[in-house]
């Protein structure tokens, strides 16, 4: 758990669990921990064919379980990792939210949010290498990141060609990088259409990652491709928060923002999976979004109220809380991941008509509801450019990724079980106070940080593409 400016009680994974460092990729067995004994197994996110062995599948499941165990203060009888054990469970994709960055919008306005989110400096600018994905790194924290691909037109002008969106989880790729360079290369090629050079994925000088220890693979990959994601162990080892290599910046392989991680996804669903309620007359009624976040339920120094302003957190937490209030047990449906659940493609026009089908390319998932990747816009072989597309009823020119992200909904898939009795004691444990008025998001502390970013943008905007 990285961030959110809240106190978080994350514990180190139990020593009894299998960890990456004591496993050999070539020949290992992965026992279930004795106290876990789950009947459920999560496949690769999107049901991709990346995980081609039971051992890799087990490692992925151990990773999920490790993150879950580390969040023990938030555990609840209304949430289980063992989705197969949920009584009368059905899978739903109703917990979803808009993919556009919410924070710069509620702090400032839509125009500023679009500018900051699409921020990209012109290639060749002295600051380009550091700031080329500035918008992505600073603002794409609703479990969807994008990169704008530019190309020169016949006049030599650099123009946006298409936008690549990804919802793939950093932890999953780090697992592949640590334990199976071959499957990492497979996933890379699945996205880019070419085999990688090992140095792209593990750092300069690496010609055979199988000669590296697991730790060195992880450190190399984290440094050059994934970043540290706020992981304190990696940061202590010198891994930067964001990767210094280009391959993920250029290809949007997976998400790197520290908030967009498996740990935070688990955290926010677990945070919500309690029967938050308030009394109305003699009855219990569900707490509102602001009420859920306006009280310290888990020992936080300050209530995490500013989470209520974002897209992802209130949607995930309220989705879970609503089920807990009804006494329903929930879990992540198989496969656990973040998915592109809807895309309002009809809001875009090209030459006054619908977008050509080949300009909308979903991938990294086994069909609708499981896609983790979207490329929107003309391909390299096409003479057209992204800015020839219009968006919305007023047919405004498409400027970049923000306007597209506004029309994408992302979310996890949940399994929801049958209802059960919730006792007064359970409601009382998560009783909230009714608020006189909604929280004023403009006062959120994140707005002060974003004000500095906006000032920085104003300083450099002359160099923007």
């Amino acid at each position, binding site marked *: 758990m990285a961030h959110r400016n809240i106190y978080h009680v994350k514990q180190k994974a139990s020593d009894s669990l299998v960890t990456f460092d004591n496993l050999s990729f070539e020949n290992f067995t992965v026992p279930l921990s004795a106290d876990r004994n789950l009947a459920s197994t999560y496949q690769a996110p999107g049901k991709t064919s990346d995980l081609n062995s039971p051992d890799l599948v087990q490692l992925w499941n151990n990773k999920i379980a490790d993150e879950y165990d580390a969040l023990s203060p938030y555990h609840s009888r209304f949430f289980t990792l063992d989705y197969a054990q949920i009584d009368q469970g059905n899978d739903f994709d109703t917990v979803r939210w808009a993919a556009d960055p919410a924070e710069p919008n509620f702090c400032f306005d839509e125009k500023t949010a679009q500018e900051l989110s699409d921020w990209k400096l012109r290639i060749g600018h002295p600051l380009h290498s550091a700031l080329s994905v500035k918008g992505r790194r600073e603002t794409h924290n609703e479990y969807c990141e994008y990169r704008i691909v530019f190309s020169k037109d016949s006049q030599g002008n650099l123009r946006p060609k298409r936008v690549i969106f990804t919802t793939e989880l950093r932890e999953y790729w780090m697992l592949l990088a640590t334990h199976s360079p071959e499957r990492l290369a497979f996933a890379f090629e699945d996205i880019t259409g070419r085999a990688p050079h090992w140095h792209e994925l593990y750092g300069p000088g690496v010609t055979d990652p199988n000669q590296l220890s697991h730790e060195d693979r992880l450190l190399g990959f984290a440094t050059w491709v994934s970043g540290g994601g706020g992981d304190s162990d990696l940061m202590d080892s010198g891994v930067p928060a964001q990767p210094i290599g280009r391959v993920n910046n250029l290809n949007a392989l997976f998400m790197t923002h520290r908030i967009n991680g498996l740990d935070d996804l688990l955290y926010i669903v677990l945070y919500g999976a309690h029967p938050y309620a308030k009394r109305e007359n003699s009855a219990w009624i569900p707490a509102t979004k*602001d009420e859920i976040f306006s009280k310290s339920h888990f020992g936080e120094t300050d209530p995490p109220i500013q989470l209520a302003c974002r897209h992802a957190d*209130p949607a995930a937490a309220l989705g879970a809380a609503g089920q807990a209030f009804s006494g329903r047990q929930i879990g992540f449906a198989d496969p656990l991941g973040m998915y592109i659940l809807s895309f309002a493609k009809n809001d875009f026009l090209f030459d006054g008509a619908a977008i050509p089908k080949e300009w909308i390319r979903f991938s990294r998932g086994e069909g609708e509801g499981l896609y983790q990747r979207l490329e929107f816009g003309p391909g390299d072989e096409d003479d057209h450019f992204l800015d020839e597309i219009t968006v919305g009823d007023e047919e405004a020119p498409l400027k970049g990724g923000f306007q597209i992200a506004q029309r994408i909904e992302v979310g996890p898939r949940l399994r929801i079980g049958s209802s059960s009795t919730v006792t007064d004691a359970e409601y009382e444990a998560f009783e909230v106070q009714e608020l006189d008025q909604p929280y004023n998001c403009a006062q959120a502390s994140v707005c002060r940080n974003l004000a500095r970013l906006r000032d920085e943008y104003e300083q450099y905007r002359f160099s923007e593409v």
Partner: protein
Amino acid sequence: MTDQIQEGVYFRPGERPPDHFAIAFLTLSNAPDPIRVRGLLDDIWNTIERLKSGDVADLPGQPFDPKNLSAFLGFGSSFFRRLALDSAMPPELKRFRPPKPDGGGSVSLGSGLNYGPDVMRNPADAAISLQFTGDSALSVRRAVVEVWKTIENYSASHGSSPLILSGSYTGFGREDKRSWIDFFDGTSNMRSDQRLAAIQIKERSIQLPDKWKEGGTFLCFMRIRVALKSWKSLSRADQEILVGRDKLTGCPLVVADDGTGSTPIPGCPFSSGGNVEDGENEQFRFASRPAGSQELRNSHIHRANQGRSTSSDPESRLVFRQGYEFLDGIDEDGNPVLGLNFVSFQDTPERILGMLKLPGWLGNVNFGGDEANQPPGMDELLTVFAAGFFVSAPVSQDGKFPGREIFSISDSLT
């Protein structure tokens, strides 16, 4: 929590909209001068204030009962653009798409709502809207006519008018709380204590030229015709599945115990002959999304209100509805021309646009049901005569028309 929402929005606890409604649209003449527009709006607002106190200019000394007349003033995007007040325009203020030149066409990309085939102009694509509500048919109609008189007087004294009364519609409330399709309507509207959070434009942390809007709201208006003949051709069961409620009682449908089909939620109504508008059935007005049935999740009530979040969150798509029905004669085929003046208030048009466009909401469907398998006629059950968004300033503290300070944002007026 105090609010600054203009009058005519009946969202506060215990408030109920008056029975009568009118809306007037004003467009700008060629090359409008902002100073003249402001002057004429001053005159119009003065006329309205006099009407509200039972006084009309052409009948001096003849006071009348204003019948609880209220007025709500909003600005459309063309107001800002044509008066070169672009910097003061809220960026979220949108226009619906225009009808096709030969009629018809979608009101919004991705939406299944289309203009009527004979609609070639959108009267609600206007610079200014004036909504009137009151307790008598005369009160709201007279207000529209007095606005017209004020414009005529201005034109007579100044040689021309910068504003033109370009359209007007009227409507009435139904005491039975049903719509023309016979089902209860607006049943799952927000609780009164949740409404302000959904409709009041939020404060921002920085000073922007459109800061004047904070504390105000956005009006969405659509004049929607209902093809009642098509609706009547459906069985009651098919109608109920499309709506998601029992036709008589308004009780929400849930999956039947045997896992097939649907049935009114157990326990509703509480007593025989009751319905969801009774106090004892209040708990059944809002319907949770049925977990086990895509057919029910495709129904109108579950597409339009998904209960995803709380009202302050725009992604909840919750809006405060205050609609009025209309009956406007008989068409050439002998069918009644009737429908709904859809009126909603929200803190951003995105709530409505998302509801209309997004897959899983009302995107690609006209009213409800499976978009790929619509019952006969249901892809054109609703057609639109007029549609527009308008931003309203908070209530004025000095008796002038709300939003008058917008004009001082323009350098030409300072």
